[in-house]
């Protein structure tokens, strides 16, 4: 790749330096070197407006929600329900009752497994997953299969890390009851053609859950346009706090489902003989919810919406293209996951060097990447590696940081040469 092309690729219309000033943690130094944070697919950092919102909640507004008539409870409830409406707008959900607060994507998927799967999937039935699922979208369904005697069917992928749609079509039969797939792969970065895949499933009368944990930070999601039946994501990968996640579900399905947990707030009336469950979404929100985290997620949605997800995606794509070109040019470096449609995730391996050694040595230079199986061991098995090194970019990352990564990789290779 010529210098000219690289130069052109390094320009985007995002004022990254101004954005970086919003993220206090990015000012940290390790080993006297600036932090180069390239582990955003694991967890992204929080900007000051989100942190400030959390502080304001804790210092001025905290009380339990949906409980009392006093001021603070009203303010906290307004903040919590306000966050629900922000999520509703963010995903273009028609009805705010279709938004359920959970602890994260994992809990969202487990909620669907318990509430929908245990009621409507039985012995001999089949559930379709893909070969690139995170463990959180494999294990709950496996547990259901064990309990019910149902079977998992897996959509294979090609060597670029793209799902094979013909094989997907062929997996459907009269026993297919559910499809649960990643919108974007955490280990490979692949953006799956979910709209088409949902249409195929619906033509067989089968509902679809999308694991959107890696998608929402990079892709504009419109659940009505996608027509997905369930959509799950986590706050902490969208510049919000940990401990908060979202499950979107079509109201008609949520109404049919059993509650996932029993407790306070999910009931209308309780006697020792009988309990009447609350309406959706509260039927699925037993106990005191993570109020602060939900409000923080709302603030994070405001933050990314103000910058604009299209501009965020454009910058991240430019970073990804630049990094892909740079790493591809390094001898001995192999990219894992080279799909045509990708989010800003770059998994790679280096000849003869274990990813954990790569991670440890890069860490000495202040560069934070992930090394391991990325909770996607079947993906590692598919590509015949025990683990990969993974750099994942956010809109606050710079082209200089990509250069630092490349220099770091060269340094690792030199140490091992």
């Amino acid at each position: 790749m010529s210098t000219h092309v690289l130069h052109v690729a390094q320009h985007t219309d995002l004022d990254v330096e101004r954005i970086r000033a919003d993220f206090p943690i990015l000012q940290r130094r390790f080993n006297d070197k600036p932090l180069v944070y390239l582990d955003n697919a694991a967890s992204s950092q929080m900007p000051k407006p989100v942190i400030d919102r959390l502080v304001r909640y804790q210092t001025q507004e905290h009380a339990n929600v949906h409980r009392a008539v006093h001021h603070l409870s009203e303010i906290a409830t307004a903040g919590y329900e306000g966050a629900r409406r922000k999520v509703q707008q963010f995903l273009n959900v028609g009805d705010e009752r279709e938004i359920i607060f959970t602890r994260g994507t994992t809990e969202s998927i487990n909620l669907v497994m318990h509430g929908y799967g245990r009621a409507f999937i039985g012995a001999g039935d089949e559930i379709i997953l893909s070969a690139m699922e995170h463990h959180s979208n494999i294990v709950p369904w496996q547990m259901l299969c064990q309990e019910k005697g149902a079977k998992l069917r897996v959509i294979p992928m090609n060597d670029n890390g793209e799902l094979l749609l013909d094989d997907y079509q062929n997996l459907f039969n009269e026993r297919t009851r559910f499809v649960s797939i990643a919108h974007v792969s955490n280990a490979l970065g692949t953006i799956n053609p979910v709209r088409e895949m949902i249409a195929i499933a619906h033509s067989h009368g089968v509902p679809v859950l999308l694991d959107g944990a890696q998608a929402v930070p990079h892709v504009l999601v419109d659940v009505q346009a996608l027509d997905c039946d369930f959509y799950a994501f986590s706050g902490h990968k969208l510049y919000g706090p940990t401990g908060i996640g979202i499950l979107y579900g079509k109201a008609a399905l949520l109404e049919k489902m059993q509650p996932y947990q029993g407790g306070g707030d999910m009931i209308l009336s309780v006697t020792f003989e009988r309990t009447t469950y609350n309406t959706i979404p509260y039927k699925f929100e037993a106990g005191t919810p993570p109020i602060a985290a939900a409000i923080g997620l709302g603030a994070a949605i405001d933050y990314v919406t103000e910058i604009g997800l299209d501009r965020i995606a454009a910058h991240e794509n430019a970073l990804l293209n630049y990094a892909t070109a740079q790493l591809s040019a390094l001898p001995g470096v192999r990219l894992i996951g080279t799909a045509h449609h990708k989010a800003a995730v770059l998994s790679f391996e280096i000849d003869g060097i274990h990813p954990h050694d790569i991670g440890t040595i890069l860490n000495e230079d202040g560069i934070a990447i992930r090394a391991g199986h990325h909770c996607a061991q079947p993906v590692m098995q598919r590509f015949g590696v025990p683990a990969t090194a993974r750099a994942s970019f956010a809109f606050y990352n710079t082209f200089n940081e990509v250069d630092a990564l490349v220099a770091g990789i060269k340094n690792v290779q030199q140490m091992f040469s």
Partner: protein
Amino acid sequence: MDTKQLYQEVILDHNKKPRNYGALENANRRAEGHNPLCGDHIILSVRVEDERIESLAFQGEGCAICKASASMMTTYVKGKTLPEAEQMVQEFRDMATGKLNIEHQPHHLGRLTVFAGVRDLPARVKCAILPWHTLHAAFSNEHVASTEGADEPMKAIVGNV
């Protein structure tokens, strides 16, 4: 010693040219160690005679820290009695987890102290310790010891520390 120094010393030598790499034909102790989270995998075969390690060899896949630790371990425990080797297992483990201060407390680790720095790399401690856990598993396997030979190798899966 910082991480880069650790890597330079350890890698230049043992990762590239591992000592005692392979499988012993006449082993009478074997064990297999595995760190499921990172894929480190060590198979150790040992020949013990009169409570003394006559010879030993390792095979496997893993990161540089794990392989170098295994390689150096084989050179250090060869010729040691079982109690001596067990004591080294304990000392190595204590050093890697920061419980043994190699500057001020007595030990028998010699140049193995090059691994003391992993105590500052919590995610990597298990890589360095795995070969030693595997050695311990090979010794504590009385069944294999009594069968004399490799006809019935018994697997010991060694998990995380």
